[in-house]
């Protein structure tokens, strides 16, 4: 038992850091640091740089283009990327649908989709939630009826993150309406250009267009786009969810955010005194940093107990809860660090192409907005209450 990094791991960290110094575009890092919104092009540019180095599909098995890194290496990589201000990878393609295709897909699906994901030719979004199926995901109603060698898809998905950028969507659809809830569901890959699909924006409380509604009206999907067996889609869904939650611990992001919080608390002053020197505020930061240390250690322990980056449902539930709460708590303190200066709603300053003079400091527009945006963390991917249900059922057997 030893929590110290090995010399090899320290060398790896230097290698990653050097790569980031040379290759992470400064304009992108700047937007990330200041909490500005990123354009589709920003994400794709960074994904292509990573892919060129062979560091994009970190979690894939090596034979498909993965890195073969240990969990500790992956952790170091995440931490360094976040510290340097690299954008958090949009997970839907590379870290969500890809592991499902690798695990359950046909050879033809692997051959077609995986290289396109690696090259950032496809932007995937996720068709899970519906107006009547949120936490109770298995009550979804979007239908897929067999019609020759096609499925005819009808229904509505919602909360589709960055669906406005996507050319593909992976969906949970009901293929057997007579079966019990989880049993009649299938996992379907759909081209967003197919006639009958309409995407409508949903503007969230921070004024951002991040999520969408997606409507399906007699959309014809080839049968070969089914992943795994018909009516066994719930298995894929559960597999994917554990991958989703593991990523949600977001330790690297939280560490970077905490460093940013300290910068803000140094720069903001009250009667000439930096906020960080106010013993009460400083103790609040200290408390968060200690908690983050504990969550990081737990993450490492749980990841170390697994091999392929996915972790058992119950443990990933704990990580999801603790990781999301801590990120929310950090933005809470960032907002408070600004005092009344957090009030102005400076939307143009958050846009990817903002180059003007900020009203106050360049970091000033983001904290309150981020605070509200990140309320989503404890809601999506199975709300934190659902995670507690999972822990009660699977770990505690209550």
């Amino acid at each position, binding site marked *: 038992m030893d929590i110290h990094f090995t010399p090899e791991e320290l060398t790896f960290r230097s290698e990653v850091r050097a790569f980031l110094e040379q290759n992470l575009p400064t304009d992108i890092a700047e937007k990330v640091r200041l909490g500005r919104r990123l354009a589709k092009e920003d994400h794709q540019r960074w994904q292509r740089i990573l892919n060129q180095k062979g560091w994009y599909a970190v979690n894939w098995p090596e034979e498909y283009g993965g890195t073969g890194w240990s969990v500790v290496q992956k952790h170091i990589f995440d931490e360094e990327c976040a510290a340097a201000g690299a954008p958090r990878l949009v997970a839907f393609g590379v870290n969500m649908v890809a592991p499902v295709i690798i695990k359950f897909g046909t050879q033809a699906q692997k051959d077609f989709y995986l290289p396109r994901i690696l090259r950032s030719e496809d932007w995937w979004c996720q068709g899970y939630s519906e107006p009547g199926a949120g936490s109770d995901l298995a009550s979804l109603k979007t239908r897929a009826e067999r019609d020759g060698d096609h499925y005819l898809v009808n229904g509505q998905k919602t909360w589709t993150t960055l669906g406005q950028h996507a050319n593909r969507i992976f969906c949970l659809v009901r293929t057997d309406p007579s079966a019990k809830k989880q049993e009649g569901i299938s996992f379907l890959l759909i081209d967003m250009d197919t006639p009958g699909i309409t995407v409508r924006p949903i503007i969230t409380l921070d004024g951002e267009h991040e999520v969408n509604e997606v409507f399906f009206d007699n959309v014809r999907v080839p049968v070969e786009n089914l992943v795994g067996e018909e009516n066994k889609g719930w298995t894929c869904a559960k597999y994917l969810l554990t991958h989703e939650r593991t990523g949600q611990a977001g330790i690297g992001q939280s560490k970077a955010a905490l460093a940013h919080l300290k910068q803000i608390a140094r720069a903001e002053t009250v009667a000439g005194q930096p906020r960080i020197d106010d013993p009460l505020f400083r103790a609040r930061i200290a408390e968060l940093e200690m908690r983050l240390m*504990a969550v990081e250690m737990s993450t*490492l322990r749980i990841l170390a107990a697994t091999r392929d980056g996915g972790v058992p449902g119950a443990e990933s539930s704990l990580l999801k809860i603790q990781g999301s709460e801590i990120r929310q708590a950090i933005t809470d303190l960032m907002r408070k660090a600004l005092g009344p200066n957090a009030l102005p709603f400076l939307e143009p300053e958050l846009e990817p192409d903002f180059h003007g003079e900020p009203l106050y400091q360049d970091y000033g527009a983001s904290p309150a907005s981020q605070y509200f945006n990140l309320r989503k963390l404890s809601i999506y991917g199975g709300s934190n209450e659902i995670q507690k249900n999972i822990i009660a059922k699977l770990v505690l057997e209550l």
Partner: protein
Amino acid sequence: MNFELNEEQQMLADTVERLVRNTYSFEQREVFYQSSRGYSPEFWRQLSELGITSVPIAAEYEGFGGTGVENMLVMKELGRGLCLEPYLHSQIYAVGLVEQLGSAEQRQSILPAVAAGERLLTVADEEAGSHYHPEAIECQAVPCERGWRLSGRKRVVIGGELAHTILVTARMSDGEGVSLFLLDPAAEGVSRTSYPCIDGPRACDLALADVYVEADSLLGPAGKAAPALAYQRGRAVAAQCAEAVGSMEEAFRLTLDYLKTRQQFGSPIGRFQALQHRMAEMRGELELARSMTILAACVADDPDSESRSRRLAAAKFTVARASQLIAEQSVQLHGGIGMTWEYSLAHHAKRLVMLTHQFGDDDFHLGQYSALLEIPRQASQQVA
């Protein structure tokens, strides 16, 4: 970085676990508690026969030469059994001070007997106004011919009634700083007031009235014991975290069993979501406490540094918060039965809450961490 125990460590954990399970049932513990000595000399003898008392002591003094990880494994099981013996204060804290500060002769004359379980040590470092700050003391050492004379009062010396030698902190009357002395509690002018602590183990207060100690009873250089005290308190904190984890695991297990068996409104109360979520939250905090206990065990023997101090403070803070949560909520989820003396859970709750009153509670360690908080030296240009 790895979190696996090696074969030897696993054997050690299994050995202590088995011994505690077989000899330290809650009913037995109650007998030990009520006995005149307040602990089990027989259990201590078994620990020494199995070599467990020697675990934290260096091999050159006939010890096992264990690290923070071995200490963690032992303490976790002693915590699970709510054991009353002063293992932490004698074998880990006091031994650490003797190893760090003692001369070759002092170490050689003390440690082998401690490793063998024949001699008990403890540390008298708290006073009425010290509250986890070992330098904030008033006890005085006045130089005299061939030694010193100690005067003052020490509080809550765990295991002080049994100890053959007590390590006493005192200020030098003729200089700066805190010194440590080896005190024979039978010496003239020493009086002990003994009592059980609310969580079980025995302690005593010490009154020192002009007590003569010989020149060679000074442990380490005069007036310079503070760094060693801080360092060894860090090792003690790491071990104490493990004790808390053992106790938390047991309290959690008892509570989970209870939720599955206790029937109200026609079903096991564990079916109710409010209680399920409470348990899930406790499980989450327990997990964090375990993680920080491992971290603490792994850095406990590192050379002194701010990073080590931060991590140990963070560990104790995390464990103290988790301990109190699990103590309070285990009692709450049990209802009235959790309030009774005859049920072990109540004693775990007391232990979990009160162990934060040794070596610093959560607020103390929050303050320590806050003082050591790393602030980026140079704010990035945009912020500056």
